[in-house]
């Protein structure tokens, strides 16, 4: 039997379809990136750690609902003790903020796999040798990072929102608290865009694990510590703007309508400026790293 016979037996026929636009490649790029991350056992360990807090809140909301029904006399006591689980915008904002450490760790791990490896192992050339422009590649990668952020913040927050509402006696919780839904999505969007741009830029310039992890940790742990030191030294709260996660939290508070007017409102504009500056600087940093490779057609 020769090769032609084998091909015929396999039912092969030439493809006669139309090639789709390049933008539709962003989802396969994102999906492939997520597959690479999901295949690692360490990812599931980190996700498990990240969901501990979610599980705790989930159980607490359920417990509160049960107590409300079974023993209304202690309802006020429970509400006082568990103020943080009140079903208000603050609850979800605080939850999403508290997911920060694990999200940061997860992205430190994923940054090397999603972006760093493309630069170290030459995977970028593989992508760009297809009918995929640089912008499609960048958007695809940003989308994969953003989805990871949403997995640890927005998705659990939405589940908690649904749980809280479904454990009340009517649908009025959802009707009265649509701002919370928009707050979750808005805060999630801010985190997704900012963190994806920042991580891509860092991983493109520092593709090796150790420098990337150190730089990433410095941004989220060392800068806030420095900000706290300078704030206590000079008494100026504007030093707290050095903490990026805090800046995103302020914007998230505004999304939820949970800004504390005395403390936080004056810093809101500064936070927006810092977040925009980080996004802009990251975008500018990404450009030369993607243009560094010329694919000759």
């Amino acid at each position, binding site marked *: 039997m020769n090769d032609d016979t084998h091909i015929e037996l396999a039912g092969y026929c030439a493809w006669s379809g139309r090639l789709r636009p390049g933008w539709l490649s962003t989802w396969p790029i994102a999906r492939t990136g997520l597959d690479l991350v999901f295949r*690692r056992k*360490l990812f599931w*360990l*980190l996700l498990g*750690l990240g969901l501990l807090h979610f599980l705790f809140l989930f159980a607490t909301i359920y417990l509160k609902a049960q107590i409300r029904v079974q023993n209304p006399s202690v309802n006020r006591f429970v509400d006082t003790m568990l103020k943080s689980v009140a079903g208000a915008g603050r609850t979800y904002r605080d939850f999403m903020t508290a997911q920060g*450490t*694990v999200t*940061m*760790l997860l992205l*430190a*791990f994923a940054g090397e796999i999603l972006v760093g490896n493309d630069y170290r192992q030459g995977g970028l050339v593989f992508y760009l040798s297809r009918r995929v422009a640089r912008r499609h590649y960048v958007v695809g990668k940003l989308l994969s990072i953003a989805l990871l952020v949403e997995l640890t913040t927005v998705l659990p927050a939405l589940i908690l929102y649904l749980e809280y509402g479904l454990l009340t006696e009517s649908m009025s919780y959802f009707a009265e608290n649509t701002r919370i839904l928009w707050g979750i999505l808005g805060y999630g969007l801010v985190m997704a865009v900012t963190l994806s741009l920042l991580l891509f830029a860092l991983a493109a310039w*520092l593709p*090796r*694990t*150790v*420098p990337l*992890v*150190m*730089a990433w*940790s*410095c941004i989220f*742990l*060392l800068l806030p*510590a*420095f900000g*706290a*030191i*300078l704030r*206590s*030294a*000079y008494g100026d709260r504007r030093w707290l703007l050095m903490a990026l996660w805090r800046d995103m939290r302020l914007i998230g508070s505004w999304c939820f309508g949970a800004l504390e007017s005395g403390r936080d409102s004056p810093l809101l504009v500064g936070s927006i400026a810092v977040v925009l500056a980080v996004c802009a600087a990251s975008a500018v940093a990404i450009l030369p790293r993607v243009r560094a490779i010329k694919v000759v057609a």
Partner: protein
Amino acid sequence: MKTPAAYRSSLTGHIRGSAVLALVSLRRMVRSRQSVVCALLLVSAGLAAAAWSLRHAPVVQEFVSEVLLPVYVSFLLPMFSLCCATPSIAADREEQTLVYLLATPLPRPMVCVAKCAASLALAMAWTMATWAVLTWFAGPAGRAVFWPFCPVVFWSTVAYVGLFHLFSVALRRATVVALVYALFLETLLGNMPGIAKRVAISFYTECMILDAGAKLGLSPTVGREPELLLPVSGDVAWTVLCALGFLFFAAGVWRFSREEYA
């Protein structure tokens, strides 16, 4: 001059080879991009300490609670150790250059010792240098604690480097696991009531700080309430840090001797 055959499996050859490996590893780490990041951290720490010292009459208690514990002990000390220790075997494994080291007649324990020695030397240099810079630029409040707390920095570095070196030998993603330990587990355990926090290296670091600080008149409530910390004595903390450092190191050598890296 002896021929190459004369050096087959000689003890002096092994010692010479191990020393060369340690020096080469140290040189490679010093010349790598992570040294730039470490240098930036050191400079940033110095600048932050200098800015802090400009406040009106800072005291030692404030230096310990506002600078030492949140910045140095919680972040810089484990980070420098992570940066130097996790790539010791893991980087060679990832870059597939470990095969050259395993093809030499150096016994595997000696390869591991050489790598760990290089990591420890560099980590110690960074932690001590940053400690010196931090305390110097923090002014009198910082300089007063430089010598009394040097043993804390030294032994904590030994313990962290031992642990992270073990991660490097045993795990593929050693850097991320070390980061999870340093930034997540230690924080989680540190905030737990009871004696669960005694699993973390940072607990013993804090105990040594409290013990050394007591001689300088530091209040035992610095950092957190004593009933939350439940500290052990400085001598016990020092013993545990030493023992942990050597135990992790020995476990790393044992594991490296048996592992098939292929």
